[in-house]
């Protein structure tokens, strides 16, 4: 069915698809170095670092970044324990109650961010809590905890419950058994979940936009500013973020390949 010709077509399609994804990012990055005031690499009017300087001088941007970071840290601090506790609880249930609880837990993932934002706002208003980034933290946690739960639950499947029994049998308290036996097994999942939670929080727009009141995070600062007067400072920011992402991706790949090589040696 698939002749070499159609394979060639698919190879070409693959390359074009990659280009389709990557080129716009490169274009956006290119504009950061163009001295034209309009955020576009064309027409090219000359190389400049100006936009980077303006970016670093923008105190609002720094405030927004700070806010983004502390919101993200708070979200990680909340969602990782919640997700872990929920996963452990779910893992100990069977049958109907487990299915129902599982469905309720993943509902926030499927819910539009707008709905999460509005409901969080309305709920806390009843208790006299005004809009602000604290509500963004709560709104984001509601669905990010679900992602954490899924990752921890998956890791729990590979855990031998007999180890906990052995620990108890040797005289450990429940707390000691958790700390010395179960948690070490979960650490890889907890680490990945924390990283995932962090990045999901940083890039969140919808829920944050509805719950933030007048406070700013980085995403909202640029998202809201977009229409009115975009200057290439955002392109400068984009270059920085994309570079970090690419470096992280390459670093991760190198680490992954090294681990695989290690495994092959040990086997």
């Amino acid at each position, binding site marked *: 069915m698939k002749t070499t010709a159609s394979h060639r077509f698919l190879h070409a399609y693959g390359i074009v698809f990659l280009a389709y994804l990557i080129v716009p990012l490169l274009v956006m990055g290119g504009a950061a170095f163009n001295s034209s005031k309009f955020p576009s690499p064309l027409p090219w009017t000359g190389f400049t670092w100006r936009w980077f300087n303006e970016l670093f001088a923008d105190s609002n941007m720094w405030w927004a970044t700070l806010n983004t970071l502390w919101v993200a840290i708070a979200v990680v601090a909340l969602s990782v324990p919640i997700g872990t506790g929920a996963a452990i609880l779910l893992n100990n249930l069977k049958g109907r109650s487990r299915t129902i609880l599982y469905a309720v837990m993943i509902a926030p993932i499927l819910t539009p961010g707008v709905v999460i934002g509005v409901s969080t706002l309305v709920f806390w208003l009843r208790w006299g809590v005004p809009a602000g980034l604290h509500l963004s933290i709560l709104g984001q946690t509601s669905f990010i905890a679900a992602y954490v739960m899924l990752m921890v639950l998956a890791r729990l499947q590979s855990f031998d419950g007999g180890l906990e029994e052995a620990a108890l049998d040797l005289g450990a308290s429940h707390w000691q058994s958790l700390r010395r036996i179960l948690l070490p097994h979960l650490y890889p999942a907890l680490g990945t979940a924390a990283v995932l939670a962090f990045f999901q929080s940083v890039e969140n727009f919808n829920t944050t936009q509805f719950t933030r009141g007048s406070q700013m995070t980085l995403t909202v600062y640029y998202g809201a500013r977009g229409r009115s007067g975009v200057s290439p400072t955002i392109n400068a920011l984009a270059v920085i973020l994309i570079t970090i992402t690419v470096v992280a*991706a390459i670093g991760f790949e190198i680490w992954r390949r090294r681990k695989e090589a290690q495994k092959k040696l040990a086997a």
Partner: protein
Amino acid sequence: MQAMVRRYGGFITGLSLALTAFWLLVLVLIPYFDMFESSFRPYLPFVDIGGPKDIYSLNNYLSIFHNPTDIKVNFFGFETKLFMSIHLWVFFLTIAFSCLSTFLAFLLCYPLAYYLAKVLEPGRLATFMLILIIPMWVSELLRTFAMFILLAFNGPLTILLQSIGVVTGGVRWTWSLWGYSGVVFTLIYVYVLFMLFPVYNAMTSLDSNQIEAAKDLGASRWRIHRRVVMPHCKPGIASGCVTVFMLCVGSLLVPGLLNSPSSQWFTELIYSRMFVENDWNGGAAYAFLMLIFCTIFVTLTMRLFKVGLADIAK
């Protein structure tokens, strides 16, 4: 529960229960319920809340039908006039264009998913995936902005085409499709990977021998896809479609940046009702409408594709 107390002790069990209860009740269920409840209450000045005027009604939901006006619609050369409320029209268009974006994203992804799962050598696959992941890790904001810059009136795409003589003057990329073309292009660009991964995953689980067998029996390429590959990938396709559709309908950033002056997205209506008109109850009703509709869509898709909830959740 008894078994859990025995296994983990009272304190840890209690802690897990407390964390889960806090999450599901305080962060999820009660806020949804509150939103649901306020959507039925009228928008009143502070003093009147809880008083005799505060009664339950469907008014906030029905308000989507209010203030009908004439809307001129130009559909492939046919001009008609519709008499309906703008909000309802926007709701309809949001759904329609989200469906269009989902469909186009699927068309775009399907060959690539097949390519990655069946054609590309495994050695090259890791590298390909790595490059593919980068736009994913780069946030939605940056992907949106990239398109925004590309499609700008005098933006790079225009200039490129000008330089090779295809167009003269600026091109309003965002003004076709009643002003939604920019939104549709960008939605596809921003969310295409959410379609790719579920479909790709489904494809990898397809045994290549089945394709070989079909080829042996003389099936044409089109038939093989229609009768062997696609049926197998149904859960993945359904999962991708549901995800992308919900992301499109609920998107706030993309329409915000790429709309043309005369077009709006339903999420923007919710936003303006909440923060411009300050009518939180009305905003709640609209948000709920959107949620109901998404749920209906998900259920219909699941029925259509005959898949269950468990298949879709990753």
